[in-house]
């Protein structure tokens, strides 16, 4: 009963966040004045016909639903979102959802892989550092995280391309798949081969932060009474750390998961652009540059849904790890 109730409450909490995201986006888009001027400017770039008359502009406003009171426009756009209708691209006229769905898999594959890789390095390394606090090994790891946080990941990406793709020629610099025949005779191997560089950069950019959180969490936990109690029972250090301490030390990572996810999604816009990775991040940058606003707002909305979903999943995981949460 506790858990189901808890999950339901978390879902209810996610709704205001979602509405806040869409509202801020709506305000930003309307701060420029009536978006009709953007649409018309767009169209004017292509047509050489006579200038728009006032009557035509009014008619165009009515066509795009931009003549209604502003709160009604927001309400309509919100109901459209809930119906899965994000409008059409200014350029191609294609359905925004279709455009995004084409790009979504590439982003999710890269995100998931880098998340898993980063966590599977950060958790053991964080434990290791915390267990050897004040020693050279810990100092080395702490120094690494400080450098990692300060190192510009997009510049790191460029250096990786130069070194591994340019000088050594081991990996392709851009793209997701070879043109023509796939390398190694297999599409999956070909994609993995293309993924290694962007994956390395994304993992690097999230690793340092996760490692710091993990180390700090472990340092706090090993001072707790129950860890001391476990030790005094004569359990081996291995059992104390892995069975008693880890369970609690890992919670900061789970609780900051939503925030971490949000920041990584942001970073993917840059990484995907550099590596020509055909995902949502690159689509966002290119459509924003060309002011294809329906696609842009669609991407932000879908990203918000993904982050909220990921966060919800983390919350549920958290309550499984720590049943007290659901009972609160």
């Amino acid at each position: 009963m506790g858990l189901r109730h808890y999950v339901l409450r978390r879902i209810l909490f996610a709704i205001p966040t979602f509405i806040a995201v869409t509202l801020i986006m709506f305000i930003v888009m309307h701060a420029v004045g009536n978006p009709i001027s953007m649409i018309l400017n767009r169209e004017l770039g292509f047509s050489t016909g006579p200038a728009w008359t006032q009557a035509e502009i009014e008619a165009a406003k009515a066509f795009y639903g931009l003549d209604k009171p502003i709160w009604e426009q927001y309400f309509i756009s919100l109901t459209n979102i809930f119906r899965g209708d994000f409008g059409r691209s200014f350029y191609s006229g294609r359905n925004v959802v279709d455009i995004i769905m084409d790009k979504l898999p590439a982003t999710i594959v890269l995100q998931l892989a880098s998340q898993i890789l980063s966590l599977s390095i950060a958790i053991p390394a964080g434990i290791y550092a915390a267990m050897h606090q004040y020693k050279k090994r810990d100092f080395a790891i702490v120094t690494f995280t400080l450098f990692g946080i300060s190192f510009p990941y997009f510049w790191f990406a460029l250096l990786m391309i130069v070194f591994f793709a340019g000088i050594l020629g081991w990996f392709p610099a851009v793209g997701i798949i070879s043109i023509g025949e796939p390398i190694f005779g297999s599409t999956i191997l070909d994609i993995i081969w293309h993924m290694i560089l962007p994956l390395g950069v994304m993992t690097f950019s999230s690793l340092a932060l996760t490692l710091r959180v993990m180390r700090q969490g472990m340092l706090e936990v090993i001072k707790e009474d129950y860890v001391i109690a476990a030790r005094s029972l004569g359990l081996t250090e291995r059992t104390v750390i892995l069975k008693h301490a880890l369970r609690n030390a890992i919670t900061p990572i789970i609780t900051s998961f939503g925030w971490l996810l949000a920041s990584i999604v942001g970073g993917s816009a840059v990484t995907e652009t550099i590596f020509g990775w055909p995902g949502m991040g690159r689509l966002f940058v290119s459509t924003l540059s060309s002011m294809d606003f329906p696609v842009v707002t669609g991407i932000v909305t879908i990203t918000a849904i993904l982050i909220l979903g990921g966060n919800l999943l983390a919350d549920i995981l958290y309550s499984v790890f720590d049943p007290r949460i659901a009972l609160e």
Partner: protein
Amino acid sequence: MTEVNTQEQRQKGLSQWGLAWRRFKRNKVAVIGMVMVGSIVFLAIFAPFISPYDPDRRWFVEGLARTPPSSEHLFGVDKIGRDVFSNIIYGARNALFVGLVSTAITLLIAVPLGALAGYIGGRFDELAMRLADAFIIFPSYLLILLSIKVFSVLVMGFSVSAIAVIIGFFGWPGMARLVRGQVRMLKNSDFVEGAKCLGASRMRIIFIHLLPGVIPLIMTTAMTAIAGRIMMLVSITFLGFGDPTVQDWGAMINLGREGLLTSWWESLFAGIALFYTTLGFNLTADGMADALNPRLVR
């Protein structure tokens, strides 16, 4: 004479800040970080005197474009004929401006809000923290890019200040949470009870008695924030959403990115400048955290 001086000092003792400064000085890495920050601030302030040439001057007529580093052009010349060294120095101005202004804006929103929420508690606290929770999991980077495109590029015709304000605005929730937590911890202290008994107003207690206790935490977080914001700014200008008329490291990295194999000087030095700056701020922040929080002994 010196005898008397030391005697006097001994009697006066050191303030909390003095003690922190002494702990900070002992931390070699932190001092190096501070020197790094100091040197960048120096470059930014005295850019016109340090920079050998006008950063906008093009050297095409002299036959210089994409020329490697030489004694006249320390960091070489880029593909549109500009002296890279001068542009790096002026670029420090842009980076520091956005880093400082955006962090100041975050503090302006987050400190009063966090302090009030922490002290008053109840409904107001609940509402403020719900809002912060919501904001923290925003796809902020995408919303920042969108806002910059709309406000800074379309409405204001490339405005660096608008970029700083936008980045600063989206940074409030983390800082507000920190301040709130600290204020909640301090508000049950005896000195607050004492101030209440003396009839101090709520605002006086928050801003005169409680906030000074939060300042160390704010300072440390602000240093890390400056590093993060500079990094964010450069990534944004790297993507091409910055002001093209302002000297900027991100624009330089972007300009030279295709030539990284052959004319590496075009973007390599800008990347190093950025790394140097963020590392300096982060090292200083780390040292400050240790110095200002003696309980967290390393």
